[in-house]
C-alpha cells in the first residue's frame, strides 16, 4: 500500500502542500503574511478543517498556519516520528501466580492517533511491562488482544467471544483473568460475563481507566496493579469490576459485576456498587474483604460457558408524556424484550397501557426496573402499579436497568418460552437481585453538611 504522505490533509490545505511539493514530517520554513514559521509538518486530524497546516516548532509546541496566509514553503529536511512504548519482555517467576490479560481496548493502554487527534488503544505485554514494570512484582502476565474497540462499541458479539476465550483460559489453568476494557460500558460487559460464565473457579477482573495512560496522572497503571493483585492473589472467584475507590491514588474497590454502575462521566472513582457494598478493597499488595459472602477460588476447572444473547432487546427510559408509539415501534420492529426504567416505584403513564397490552399480546417480555437506580420495584403500592401488573409487566425487583437489559438478552438468547424467561430473570445470580437492601447500600452524602465536610477533609475524596 502506498504510504499517505499527506496524512489527514484535505481540500485547500492539501492543495497548498501539494503546490509547494512538501509532505508530512518535512522540516520546513513557511513564509506567510503573518511572518516566517519554522518547524516540522505534522499529520492533521481528519475532523479538523482544511484551512490550516500543523507545524511542530523547535520548542516542541504545535501551531497551526492558516493556508490563506502562506506565500511559500521551503523544505530543508525530513524527520518522521514513531510513537512506540519501549517493549520489554515480561519476566517470569515461578513463585508468582499466572494471570491472563485479555485486551478489548479502552484507555488502559493507549496512544495518540494522528488520524483523529485522539487517543487510541495500544496493547502488548511488552508495551505494558515497559509502561508499568511494577506489574512483574505482582504476577506473571501473558496477554491476548481480542479486539481493539472503544467501550461504546462493545456488544453481544464481543461478550460471547470474551466469554468463550475466558472459558478456554480457565481450562488451560490460569490463576486469574484481567480484562482491559473502556469504562463507558464496563458494567454492561461485567453483567454479561457474570451471566455467560457460570461457576468460575478463579477471579475474572474487569479494569479500565478514567484518565488515559498517556498522561502522567493517569489512573491506568494503579488500576492495572490493583486488578493484577485481585486476579492473581484474591480468593474471590467472581466477575468483578476493579476501579478506584476514592479519586486519590490510594486503593481500588472490587465491585460485583451485577451491582456496579458508572456514576460520573469523568471522575476516577466513578464506579459504585449500587444498593449494596463492594466485595473488597484492594491495593497493589493487599486485599481487605468488605462482604462476608462470596464465591471462593477453587482448584477445579468446572466452569460453564453460556454464550447466548438475543439482540432484539431494548431499554426504555420512561419520561412524562411518553406516547405509546415508542413501545409500539419496538414491537413493530420485532423486539422480543423490553426493560422499562420507570419512575418512582416502577410506573409509567396511562396512555402507554394499550401499547403494553399489545406488546404482551405479541409475546414481548416486558420487565420493570426503577430509574432511581436505588431501591426495589414495588408495583402493589399504587393503582398504576397494579394496573401495569395486570397488563403483564413483570417487576424486576432491585435489578439495575442495564443489568436487567443484559440479563433479558441472555435469557431470550436461551429460550422463547415466557415462563422460562421469567424463571431465569427472577432467579438471583450473583446478587443481581438481593433479598434485602442494607442501610449502607445507599449513600450519597450531600456536600455542605458540616459532618460530611469534616469526613471529606479527614479521609480524602
Amino acid at each position, binding site marked *: 500500500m502506498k504510504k499517505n504522505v499527506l496524512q489527514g490533509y484535505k481540500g485547500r490545505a492539501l492543495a497548498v502542500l501539494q503546490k509547494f511539493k512538501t509532505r508530512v514530517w518535512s522540516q520546513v520554513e513557511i513564509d*506567510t503574511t*503573518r*511572518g*516566517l*514559521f519554522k518547524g516540522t509538518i505534522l499529520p492533521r486530524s481528519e475532523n*479538523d*478543517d482544511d*484551512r*490550516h497546516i*500543523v507545524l511542530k*516548532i*523547535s*520548542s*516542541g*509546541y*504545535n*501551531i*497551526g*498556519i*492558516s*493556508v*490563506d*496566509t502562506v506565500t511559500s514553503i521551503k523544505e530543508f529536511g525530513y524527520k518522521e516520528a*514513531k*510513537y*512506540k*512504548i*519501549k517493549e520489554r519482555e515480561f519476566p517470569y517467576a515461578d513463585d508468582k501466580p499466572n494471570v491472563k490479560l485479555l485486551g478489548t481496548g479502552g484507555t488502559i493502554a493507549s*496512544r*495518540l492517533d494522528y488520524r483523529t*487527534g*485522539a*487517543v487510541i488503544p495500544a496493547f502488548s505485554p511488552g508495551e505494558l511491562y515497559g*509502561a508499568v514494570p511494577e506489574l512483574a512484582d505482582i504476577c506473571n502476565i501473558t496477554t491476548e488482544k481480542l479486539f481493539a474497540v472503544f467501550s461504546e462499541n462493545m456488544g453481544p458479539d464481543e461478550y460471547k467471544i470474551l466469554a468463550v476465550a475466558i472459558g478456554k483460559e480457565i481450562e488451560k489453568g490460569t490463576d486469574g483473568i484481567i480484562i482491559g476494557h473502556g469504562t463507558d460500558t464496563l458494567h454492561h460487559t461485567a453483567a454479561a460475563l457474570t451471566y455467560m460464565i457460570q461457576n468460575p473457579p478463579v477471579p475474572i477482573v474487569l479494569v479500565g481507566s*478514567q*484518565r488515559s*495512560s*498517556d*498522561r*502522567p*496522572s*493517569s489512573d491506568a*497503571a*494503579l488500576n492495572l496493579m490493583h486488578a493484577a493483585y485481585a486476579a492473581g492473589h484474591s480468593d474471590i472467584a467472581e466477575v468483578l469490576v476493579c476501579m478506584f475507590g*476514592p*479519586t*486519590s*491514588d*490510594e486503593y481500588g474497590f472490587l465491585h460485583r459485576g451485577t451491582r456496579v454502575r458508572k456514576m*460520573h*462521566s*469523568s*471522575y*476516577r472513582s466513578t464506579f459504585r456498587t449500587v444498593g449494596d457494598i463492594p466485595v473488597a478493597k484492594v491495593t497493589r499488595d493487599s486485599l481487605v474483604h468488605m462482604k462476608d459472602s462470596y464465591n471462593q477460588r477453587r482448584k477445579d476447572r468446572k466452569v460453564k460457558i453460556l454464550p447466548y444473547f438475543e439482540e432484539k432487546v431494548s431499554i426504555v427510559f420512561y419520561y412524562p408524556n411518553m406516547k405509546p408509539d415508542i413501545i409500539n415501534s419496538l414491537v413493530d420492529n420485532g423486539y422480543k424484550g423490553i426493560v422499562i426504567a420507570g419512575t418512582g416505584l416502577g410506573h409509567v403513564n396511562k396512555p402507554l397501557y394499550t401499547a403494553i397490552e399489545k406488546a404482551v399480546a405479541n409475546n414481548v417480555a416486558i420487565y420493570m426496573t426503577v430509574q432511581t437506580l436505588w431501591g426495589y420495584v414495588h408495583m402493589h403500592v399504587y393503582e398504576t402499579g397494579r394496573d401495569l401488573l395486570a397488563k403483564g409487566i413483570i417487576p424486576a425487583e432491585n435489578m439495575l436497568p442495564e443489568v436487567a437489559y443484559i440479563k433479558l438478552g441472555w435469557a431470550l438468547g436461551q429460550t422463547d418460552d415466557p415462563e422460562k424467561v421469567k424463571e431465569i430473570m427472577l432467579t438471583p445470580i450473583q446478587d443481581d437481585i438481593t433479598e434485602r437492601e442494607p442501610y449502607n447500600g445507599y449513600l450519597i452524602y450531600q*456536600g455542605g453538611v458540616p459532618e460530611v*465536610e469534616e469526613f*471529606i*477533609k479527614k479521609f*480524602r*475524596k
Partner: protein
Amino acid sequence: MKRNFSPRDNYQKTKSAVGYVPLHKATQADYDRVGFKAGLEVHQQLKTEKKLFCNCPARIYNKYDDYDAEIIRHMRPTLSELGEYDGTALMEFKTRKTIIYRIKNETACTYDIDDTPPFPINKQALDIALEIALLSKLNIVGEVHITRKQYLDGSIPTGFQRTAILGVEGEIRLRNKRVRLIQLSIEEDSCREVSDVGHVRTYQTDRLGIPLIETVTYPDFANPDEVREGAEYIRFLNRSTGKVRTGIGAGREDVNVSCRGGTRVEIKGVSHNKWIPEITHNEVFRQWALLKIRRILNKKVKNPDNWKIQHKFLNPEDIEFISEPSILAKENKYKIVAVNLPGFRGILSHFTQPGKTFANELSDRLKVIACIEKPNLLHSEQIEQIFPDAHLHKIKDMMNSNPNDAQLIIWGPADDIPTALETIEERCKMAFERVPNESRKSLEDGTTIFERVLPGPDRMYPDTDSEPIPLKEDHINQLKKNLPVEIHERYEQLRKWKIPEDTYNYILRNNLVPVIEKLIEELGVDPKFAGTLFGHDLKYIEGRHAHSSDFSYEKIYELIKFLKQGKINFALAKIMIPFVVRNSKKDFASILTAIDFKQIPKEDIINEIPVLKKKFKEINKSRNKDAGIHWIMGELRKSALGNISLAELKKIVENTYKTGIPRTKT
C-alpha cells in the same frame, strides 16, 4: 599532595583561579571573558474573572492550612508525541513522591484536580494574550493548538500544563539594542507549594489554572544589567495593556544563563527583577568554575569513563563525633554510608558560588533526587572542620583511599540509599564532561540550588482533549486597532515631557502614562509636575500608607480635576494624596476640611510679604543673605499651598528683597 591541605585556603585559591569578581566590581570585560549569555522567560498572570480552562474564579488565594479536602496523586512518565521519554520525567519518577493537593471548594473544581476534561479556553484571556503578542511584534499563528507540557513534580495535578503558542519571532527594544523574542504562549498557572519533605510534597490549588502568559527571549543579553532591563521592559509592556495582574507572584521570571563552553541553566521563579543581576552574575561564574573543575579532573584522572565511586556502610558508632546522623541513624534506622570519590581531593572545596563549593552540588541533588533532607552529607573538605582528623583517617583507611581521593559520609532511609549513591556517581561523572543541564532555584542571597534536570522538547504532547482554535484575520486586525503605545515610545514621551528619569520605573511599572497624558491634555497640568506627583510624591506616600482596596490611579486624576474646578493650586494635591490613598471613598471637599485648607486670595498672601520682611529684620541673627526669603516662605507656606504656586510665591518674595515691591514680573 601536601599533608596540610586546608579546604578554606583551597576555596579562596580556586575562587581567584576562576577569576570571580563581585557584581559591583564586574565590567563588560569580565562578562566577555567568561562569555556571558542569558535569555528570559517572563511569566505574567492575566486579569480575568475566571481560570483558563474552567469556570473557577481566578485569583482568590487561600491560606495554606485553609482547605476542604485533600487528594493524593503520583506522577508517572509517559511518552512524548515523538516517542521519547523526557529526562526530567525519568528523574522525577525516580524520586517517587507522593503528591498531596489541598482543595478549597471555592477556588478549585473537578477540572483542577484532573477529574474532568477541560472546558473551552477562556476567550477573555486569549484576547489579552494576543494583544500582548501583537505588542511584542510576534508572528501570530493561524491556529492555536493546546499542548501538554509534562511536569512530573506534581505542580499540576494532570501531570502536564496545558499551554499554547500564540506567536513566534518577535522583538523588544532596549536602550542600546534589540532583543529577539522566541515565542509567547498562553498557559495555566501551577499550584503553590506548601511543603516538600522526604517523599511527600504538598500543594494548594488556588493559583492553579489562572491564565498566564510566558514571553521567551533569545539569549541576547550580554550582561546582568541588560537582563534586568529586558525583564523590566517586558513587565512594563505587559502592564501597559492594563489587563494583567499585579502584586506578589503575578509576574515571575525564569532566567536562562550560560557561559562560554557551559550549558543553558534555567533559574526558576525569580519574583523580583532587582535580584536578576546578582543571580545571573553568580550563575555564569558557577558554570565557569565547573569548567575549571572539569579541566582539573581530566588532568588528574586518567580514565574518566571507568571512574566509579566506592562505598561502605558504617555503624552509628563510627561517626559518633557528628551527633546528627548518628542520632538519626539510631532513631530512624537510617543507613550511614561512607563514599570514596577517587581523584576528587581539592574538588569538594572548590569554589562554585559565593560561600558554596562543589560539595553543595552533591548535597542539593541528594535532597531533590533521593529525597534525603539536608543536612544529608559530610565530607573530607568541610570549610568548617567538623570532621576530626583521626576519624577522617579511619574512614580513609577503611576505604583504602588514595591521598588524591575525597570522601563523603551520607545518611538517609535505607530505601533511598541506592538512589543516593547513583545520584552521587552520576553528578561526579558529569563533572568530567560538562556543566549539567538543569533548572535551579534562586535564593535570596543571590546563589542558586539544584531544582531538577532541565526538560527538553520531548515533554510536549498534543492535548487530545481540546480542539485547535483558528485565529481569524479580522479578529487580529480588530485587536491591532486598540493596542496601547509601545514601551520604547513611552520612554520617548516621558523624556519629551522632561519628566525626571528617576520616575520612569514607577510610572511604567504602574502603567501611568495614560493617566499622566490625560492630566496634561485635559487639565493642562505641567508634565513635569504630573510626572513627579506620581513618581516622587505618590511613590513616597505609598511606601508609608497602605492602599485602601478601591484606590486606583484614576483617583489622582479626579483629585486634580476637583482642584481645577475649585480654582485651587495643584500643589495642594501633595497634601491631599495621603488621605486619598488611605481612604479613597472620602470626598475631596471633606479632605480639604481635614487638612484645614482655607481659600485665600493670592493678593492677600502677597500683601503679607512686606510685613513679614519687617518682622524678620527684627529677629534676624543669620548672616545668610537668603535667610529672610527662606523664613518668609516658611511662614507663608501653609496658607499659600493651594492658593498660589510656591515657585511663584518665592519669586515674589525674592523680588521684594531685590526691588522692594512684591510682584511677580516686571
